[in-house]
């Protein structure tokens, strides 16, 4: 429920509550919608996102599944093809690998392979990212891998507004949409207007305007990047921060408009560096804006290791503001 500290129609809420409100809203608006996944009902969701929804909507629509990621994701695909609008929740992206076959070989493929006779209007939500010391089987950022797959859309809500608004738009999409929720954002608070609702899912957003360098990021890294931009501002570097929001398709127009203006870019991505989403974006900049650039494109990515348990190593394995500041300064020749 949106916790009401209402002032003139503005509500303060957490990211977790915003996702829950989005699910509740979708369940109310469309009886074809149902939520299914491990521990979404009686347990209340492994990150407490769906807490309370079982009591409100019942066990048909808040459907606890056995530990069968491939099975229930596949069942979501079938239910979507059969006329329902399932929201499948996978606890974390690491476990989604057990369902990867269904996502890639079925969900992403069926429309094309069937000559447009069948589509899969399915939404799959999952948690992603490091920061909670959950070690090497619970902490990775594999959304960039999913962004490799034609046939699906990949979204990464970074703000409370997007957590609230992307789900409904995704449910209207005739094709599969994957939504990645960074685990470090669930407790984050933000404000929503009283009638907050669906948002566009096609465009990147400029979260901070600037003229000296474009910092391009998404999801949990957005906040680290904004922090870095603030630090850079103290040194008279005016960074523009782009929140990709959609990782597939990528909004090239917003990226290129920004780099055409700033002529420098650093991409921040929690995924592993080699073969990363950051690599894809960098290449697009090279393809589309090479002659506009004043410096090589930089990257701040996850180190190429499984995420370790101890806090100091975990922090060292992923992007942080200091690394982003350093990369930005390097691109500006200011180190």
């Amino acid at each position, binding site marked *: 429920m949106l916790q009401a500290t209402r002032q003139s129609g503005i509500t303060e809420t957490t990211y977790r509550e915003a996702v829950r409100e989005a699910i509740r809203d979708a369940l109310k608006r469309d009886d074809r919608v149902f939520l299914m996944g*491990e*521990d979404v*009902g*009686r*347990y*209340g969701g*492994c990150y407490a996102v769906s807490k309370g929804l079982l009591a409100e909507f019942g066990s048909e629509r808040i459907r*606890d*599944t*056995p*530990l*069968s*990621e*491939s*099975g229930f994701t596949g069942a979501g695909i079938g239910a979507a093809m059969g006329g329902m609008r399932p929201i499948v929740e996978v606890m974390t992206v*690491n*476990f989604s690998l*057990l369902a990867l076959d269904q996502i890639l070989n079925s969900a992403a493929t069926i429309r094309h392979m069937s000559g447009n006779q069948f589509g899969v209007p399915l939404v799959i939500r999952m948690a992603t990212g490091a920061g*909670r*010391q*959950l*070690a*090497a*089987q*619970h902490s990775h950022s594999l959304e960039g891998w999913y962004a490799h797959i034609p046939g699906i859309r990949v979204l990464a809500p970074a703000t409370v507004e997007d957590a609230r608004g992307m789900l409904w738009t995704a449910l209207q999409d005739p094709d599969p949409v994957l939504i990645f929720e960074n685990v470090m954002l669930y407790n984050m608070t933000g404000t929503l207007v009283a009638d907050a609702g669906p948002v566009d899912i096609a465009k990147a957003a400029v979260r901070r305007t600037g003229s000296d360098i474009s910092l391009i990021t998404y999801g949990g890294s957005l906040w680290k990047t904004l922090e870095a931009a603030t630090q850079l501002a103290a040194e008279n570097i005016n960074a523009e921060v782009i929140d990709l929001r959609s990782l597939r398709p990528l909004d090239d127009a917003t990226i290129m408009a920004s780099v055409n203006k700033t002529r420098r870019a650093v991409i921040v991505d929690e995924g592993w560096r080699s073969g990363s989403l950051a690599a894809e974006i960098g290449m697009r900049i090279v393809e589309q804006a090479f002659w506009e650039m004043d410096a090589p494109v930089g990257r701040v990515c996850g*180190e*190429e*290791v*499984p995420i*370790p*348990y*101890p*806090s*100091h*190593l975990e922090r*060292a*394995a992923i992007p942080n503001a200091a690394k982003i500041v350093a990369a930005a300064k390097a691109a500006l020749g200011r180190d």
Partner: protein
Amino acid sequence: MSGTTDKPRLSRVHMLDLLRQMIRIRLFEDKCAELYTQEKIRGFLHLYDGEEAVAAGVISLLEKQDRVVATYREHGHALVRGVVMKSVMAEMYGKREGCSGGRGGSMHLFDNTTNFYGGNAIVGGGLPMAVGLALADRMRGEKHVTACFFGEGAVAEGEFHESLNLAALWGLPVLFVCENNLYAMGTALAISQSETDIHAKAACYKITSEAVDGMDIVAVEGAARRALHAIRETGKPYFLECRTYRFRAHSMFDAQLYRDKTEVEVWRKKGPIERLRTWLEANHMIHPEELERINAEIAAEIAEAVAFAEAGSWEPVEDLTRFVYAEAAS
């Protein structure tokens, strides 16, 4: 050795040893829970409270060269297997002196000196590995057994079925031990399985299979003795379903909305430590001073383990990328 005969051993010394093994796990984990609230241990911490008879009853029968594959709820298995308590505690802290060099934490205890293959936090992920270890032993003409522990939640995963079939089909020496504690996080067995009699599923794959009261260490040990005897005779897999219960939350983040406090209380009364202790008392096989001595020895061992972990060191950040690949021998 004890592992190869299937006669139950009810000698006093042996029973006291089983009791000691269980109390050792319990007290170690009580300490871990305390250290978690002090934020010395972080991340996920899954306690084995209530299930100690399974690890203690099965693993103490294994031979040195046998292999163990466990889950993220594996502190008890590691301790019974002989992974040194100090190194387990240091691992819980994330210190370099830990049994996985501090990188794994509570869910990823590994120890090659005791053939302890982890600490797998992907539900069902250990079963195929156990099949492979047993395949290697078979192909190399070794007579070892691989004991593979997993919860009843894993039974819903495809890997469970694929692994049982492979082990049966190829005749591999795996002891599958299902720790059926009735809940997978908040999902009760009855809402996750159409057939809740799990040992019957193994039988479908033509694996000799039995269900045992997992709160009774004598029963667990007896069944494990039969199972190991059969595996060593035939080379074929064996399935044990140990019916047990977890007294505490799934992990430290669980509000336990899915079960009644009274249900937990009822099960607590059937606890494996309580049960063996009262049986020993009723049969005048234990003196109160002996129990005190056991407790005191374990408390001292735990205190030493905590001190060791506290004094341990953090792996330098420069080493973060070491061991992603094997390092060339110098």
